[in-house]
């Protein structure tokens, strides 16, 4: 029996080509587009907006494969949007893509795929799986493993990333060669459910009303007033509402006192960090291990010593790192391989 592969299709070029490659491999490709937003939220370009669903359908017709839509708006709201809002309200900077991958794509959708008799789920992510190991994509600039660290052995045996071995240019060329209508579709860079990248507006619309508070320096001296800390991010320089001679950056957010702490560039560096909710793609390291850690998407992995205690991990960097941001993911690498990762709780000031 030829394998049946569910291809999660956003309506973009990467998942379109992923579907084409699955179909070319001789497997039975089944295209699925998830509707992630409720009816009131579908006015903008997003996973499963009506226009994107139509694009995915046209691609599947061209490839001669089946396509279905599944409504996961309720799950997406509970597992991704609500925690996103809660995190900002608590002064953290959430990473919704990690949660979407963990709970929606490689959680619920993977479960559905198995119920539908699919052997694997393929997506258009730039990453590779080889022998159950999660590896960075060939196109280093496009690598998306930062968002995929939460995959464990259970999922890694059932997923594939067909474009992980290609560059973006090769993906577009393949789409053009096949005459797929998504070949030249622009890339979406924003958080898919936040219209126009307006995080503050989105939070305000979802009950996180901005509360003005103090902006202080490390010594506790008031420098000015912020318009509400929700939406601010550690390392951020602009939009703080203070004027100082030397540029200042957010170094810490203290929700309990509604205070934003700022400092000079040097004060944004951390010599280490603590992370929670840590998961592993394979076995957890038993003893302190030298690894490279990525603390944000596209951050050049920094050498660090990793110590694990249950679901908590602490890192000490060989060289201090700028803007360690609570709420963001930290991902551990050994060369190209993703070992695991977790959510940053706090940085350790250097």
């Amino acid at each position: 029996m030829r394998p049946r592969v569910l291809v999660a299709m956003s309506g973009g070029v990467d998942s379109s080509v992923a579907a084409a490659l699955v179909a070319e491999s001789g497997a039975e490709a089944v295209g699925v587009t998830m509707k992630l937003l409720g009816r009131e939220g579908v006015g903008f370009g997003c996973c499963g907006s009506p226009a994107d669903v139509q694009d995915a359908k046209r691609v599947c017709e061209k490839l001669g494969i089946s396509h279905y839509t599944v409504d996961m708006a309720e799950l997406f709201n509970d597992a991704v949007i609500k925690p996103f809002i809660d995190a900002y309200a608590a002064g953290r900077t959430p990473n919704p893509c990690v949660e979407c991958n963990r709970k929606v794509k490689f959680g619920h959708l993977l479960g559905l795929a198995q119920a539908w008799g699919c052997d694997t789920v393929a997506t258009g992510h730039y990453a590779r799986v080889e022998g159950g190991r999660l590896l960075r994509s060939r196109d280093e600039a496009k690598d998306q493993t930062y968002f995929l660290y939460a995959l464990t052995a259970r999922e890694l045996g059932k997923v594939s990333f067909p474009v992980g071995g290609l560059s973006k240019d090769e993906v577009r060329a393949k789409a053009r060669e096949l005459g797929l209508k998504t070949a030249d579709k622009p890339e979406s860079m924003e958080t898919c459910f936040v219209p126009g990248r307006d995080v503050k507006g989105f939070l305000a619309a979802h009950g996180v009303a901005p509360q003005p508070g103090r902006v202080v320096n490390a010594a506790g001296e008031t420098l000015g007033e912020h318009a509400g800390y929700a939406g601010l991010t550690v390392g951020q320089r602009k939009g703080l509402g203070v004027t100082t001679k030397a540029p200042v950056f957010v170094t810490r957010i203290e929700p309990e006192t509604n205070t934003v702490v700022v400092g000079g560039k040097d004060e944004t560096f951390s010599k280490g960090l603590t992370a929670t909710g840590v998961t592993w793609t394979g076995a957890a390291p038993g003893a302190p291990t030298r690894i490279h850690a990525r603390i944000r998407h596209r951050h050049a992995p920094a050498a660090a010593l990793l110590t694990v205690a249950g679901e908590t991990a602490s890192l000490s960097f060989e060289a201090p790192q700028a803007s360690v941001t609570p709420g963001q993911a930290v991902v551990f690498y050994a060369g190209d391989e993703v070992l695991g990762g977790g959510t940053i709780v706090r940085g350790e000031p250097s």
Partner: protein
Amino acid sequence: MTAYFDHNATTPVRPEVVDAMLPWLREGFGNPNSVYSLGQKARAAVERARAQAAGLLGAADESEVVFTSGGSESDVLAIAGAAWQARDESGGKRRKVVTSAIEHDAVRLLVSQLRRRGFEVVEAGCGADGVVDLDAMTKAATDDAAVVSLMHSNNETGVLQPVAALAAALKGRGVLLHTDAVQSAGKVPLSVKTLGVDLLALSGHKLNAPKGVGALWVRKGTRLSPVVTGHQERNRRGGTENVASIVGFGLACELAARELEAHAARDLQLRRRVEAAVLAIPGSRVNGGGERLPNTVHASFEGLDGHHLVVALDLEGVCASSGPACSSGASTPSHVLTAMGVDPVRSTGSIRLSTGWGTTDADLERLLAVLPKAVERLRGKVPA
């Protein structure tokens, strides 16, 4: 091979119907309204089809049949046409439309339009069995009512509706009664004499004719304001006749009438086997009570989403339906089941299986082999 269990959505066109149509797409392309013989031949074909359609309904006069583009248009011509006409003739007094809460969207969306344009709309509810509240409809049809519309059978549950009883109750009230019989034609006997209605809608593609053709039966003497204006169809429906499709539709009506008993008996036999298979699955039930179409099973399964089940069945080569909204990927609770008081969770865990001409024992075997496994797998899937 695909095992097709969605005859209530559309049906395959019978080969003899295709054969009958082809000459009218090729050499017989004339306009039935033309003077020359090429047109006369087309006219004769259309009129033969009219007699065949009248025959299916037991209509005394074939001129009572108006060809349309299908069931939706027939419903619009009947309801809007009657409502506008009655309002105008009564000097604005008759401005109420009475219908049920379980009608097809063709009717539901139309009456909500009429409501926006000044008509009062009353939608009678139904019981837990899916039978519309006859008393409520009768009471709502006061002397300011322009038209009353009740479907002959429900497209989702297959539950037959008390159309004849409603017609008897409305006798002498001067209000027109329409029935959407799209889902009943060819499945249960349809006689306009017995029913006592003024208007009755049919659709071609629900009885093995092509899509894009249908008819409205209009009792002689009934005045309707046309929707598609023009001289054709005795001024009731404009537009050059869709000759080939009308010919196909006519033949399909004749075949449906001739084979009604045999098909109904066969469908009923299949339905019983489908129902037995459904009920053998724990946590399942068949929706709708009273008398139902012989070909329709509407089933609910606890602990799953009907849309997911439809996809699972399709991947194993079985076509079924989880309701009109399924293309959106959302199993929204059906308005019919909501009207029956079915809770939304059970409602979204439902699918419809409908048989018809061409359903084979092999199809049934396929369904019976695939359905229990698909239900079990969906129930056991990794939770969110």
